[in-house]
């Protein structure tokens, strides 16, 4: 049952197509998506320890088109709500659950979207300040 005994399996990457963009280019890239009349679907945030991988999913007809932004843990992330207002919920969610510093959200819940008192300020974040990495089962 050790981790080493696990047979190696090639990772699948089905999130296609994905175009990586830098934080600085994000809003411009999103504006380009808007210019193409793509529908904003959602954003997905992955806490990779030291960095966040944030996917922005857009629907082009029935197909998806994605952007990938990678930011360091403490970095600011510009809001895209000026372009796609619909992103306000997901940005507030990232702010609250992962502790990403999303700035200039159109409707800002100030980190109080879902939760009232925070025992764990950002429960989805893998690294809590002063806490051991969570996620190791029961």
């Amino acid at each position, binding site marked *: 049952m050790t981790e080493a005994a696990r047979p190696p399996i090639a990772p699948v990457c089905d999130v296609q197509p994905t175009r990586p963009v830098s934080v600085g280019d994000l809003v411009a890239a999103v504006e380009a998506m808007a210019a193409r009349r793509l529908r904003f679907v959602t954003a997905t945030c992955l806490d990779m320890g030291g960095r966040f991988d944030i996917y922005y999913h857009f629907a082009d007809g029935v197909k998806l088109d994605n952007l990938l932004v990678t930011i360091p843990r403490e970095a600011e992330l510009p809001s895209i709500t000026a372009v796609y207002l619909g992103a306000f919920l997901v940005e507030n969610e990232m702010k609250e659950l992962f502790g990403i510093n999303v700035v200039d959200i159109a409707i*800002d*819940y*100030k980190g*109080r*979207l879902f939760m*009232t008192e925070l025992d764990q300020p950002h429960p989805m974040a893998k690294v809590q300040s002063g806490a051991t990495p969570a996620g190791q089962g029961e």
Partner: protein
Amino acid sequence: MGLLEPLLKISPLTLAAVLVFSPALFGVVVFAVRTKWSRKGVVTVAGWVLTLAAITVFAIAFVSRTALSATLPAKAAPWSMIVAGGDLALLAAILVIAVRFRSAMVFGVALVQLAVVLYAELTGGHAAEAAPSVFIDWLSVVMVMIVSVIGSIIAVYGLPYMKEHERHLGIDEAGSHRPGFFLTMLVFLGAMNGLVISDDLRWVFFFWEVTTLCSFLLIRHDGTDLANTNALRALWMNTLGGVGFAVAIVLFGAHAHTYSVQALLRSPMGAAASLPILAALACLMFAAFTKSAQMPFHSWLLGAMVAPTPVSALLHSSTMVKAGVYLLMRFAPAFHGTQLSNVLAIAGGFTFVATAFLAIGQTNAKKILAYSTISNLGLIIACTGLNRPLALAAAVMLLIFHALSKGLLFMACGVVEHGIHSRDIEDMQGLVNRMPLTTLIMVIGILSMLLPPFGVLIAKLAAIEASVHLPLAMGMLVIGSTLTVAFWTKWTGRLLASEPGAVHPKIEHLHVMYFVPLVLLTVGAVAFSLAVFPLLTELVEPAVTQYYALVPGAAGGVDLSTDVLAVPWLLVFGVMATAVLAPVLVARTRPDEEVGAYMCGEQIETPNGSGFITVAEQSCSLSIRGHYFERYVGEDRHTLWMSLVAASLIAGMFGSVAVR
């Protein structure tokens, strides 16, 4: 009866002198002797004197059961010169005002009036000697009571009010405008008394113009730009009405050859009246419409609310606007059975509906009261136009009850305004927690305007009953009464909207000169409603009988027995009183639990009262604003067309003269 016998010996002329001149004299004393205590004392004494005089008049009329009349010897003085001189002096004053305030409108209208008055003086002025003759029938008695008693109460209330008012404006005792204020007020009361007891139209006209001038002075009392503008508007409108009055005098002089109201009423009138006489009556109606602020002249009364509250109370409840309806009621027998009368009913009914409608959209308490006043005057005028015994009875009852309730409401409003520094009814939300006593008084005042078994409603029911024969007027009355419910209920609701939990609020302290007048009028409003039957049989019925005696062809007594009045009102009162008192007794035992209002489970106490937790876990205080439907009942949307309709109805009155 025997006890009252000596009263009969008092000459009506003496009484008249007391009623008309004593206030003016007291006023002069107030003006001359400028100390706080003298002012308080003199005004109070003036109030007592007036009240006693009015009660004496009532007692005499009650005992003698006939109208009192007397005339000074024609030779005693050059009466015609005096009255003409008085008129001209007033006009001169108005012209001076017009020049000083650069009001072309006032100037023009005053010039026209001057022309008419001069014409009257030069042509028919001496058709009859203008010796002061007094005629006091029940209608006059009712008016004298209203003017003297309620007017005095308001004057007394004005003492602390004006003091606080000037304190607010930062005016010290030395620079106080109060002496002039009370002088004007008292002169006003005297003039009103003069207006309702004079038999000679020229004297009536003179007093009529005095009230116009007094009201101008009172409205512009604060001297702000707005006050000046509104006062000037009141002045030109009322002077315009004066033109109508003067034309009527000219016509009466030329075609009826008398200026005595009683003589006029005994001359061929109604269907038998000649065209010029009818035209004269229409002119009088026009004058009454301006004085009683009927549409399209309602704007002056709305503007008059810039004046200090005692002025509003005085203008609305007991003086000024009541002069107009008094004149119409006085002349009602003259246009009985004419088309003119019907058109009058419709015109009054229209103002009744239209202003009740506009009142729904208002948040300013005084404005609501103003609209309500205009509306009720419209109702009284409609009753006059219906010109049936029951309608007239309703009109007299409305005169009394409206004066009581409206005086009460204005005064209470003034107290509230000084308490919370706002006259917006939205700011009065939850007043019951802050000023429970005033709120209670105010709520009684409002309910007395609105609900059975209070007098206003009983009168309204009688009016509806009397209007069935004129379907259009009836429709207006029904709809108007319904609309009335909307703004009164909303306002009361605002007052009562209390924070849950504050079950026993602390009772506020009221100045004794606030407290006594308020309580007097509250008790009056309730007691008169309770005593609606004695009132009806002892006061209203004689008034209507006297009126009907003048109607040609209406032989015999007046039968006011209607189903409305046949209702066992005592039973109604009893059941309602029990229903109100029983829970109060139950409430003495505290409820088992006191909880906050239902707010979907998120209620919370905030510093500004109850609130709820909302977006981003912030607490937000609950704010509930009444519905005003500005989109539907906004003044801006409707005033213009309504005024046009009202103006065309007035034109219709003149037109109906030709049609008969």
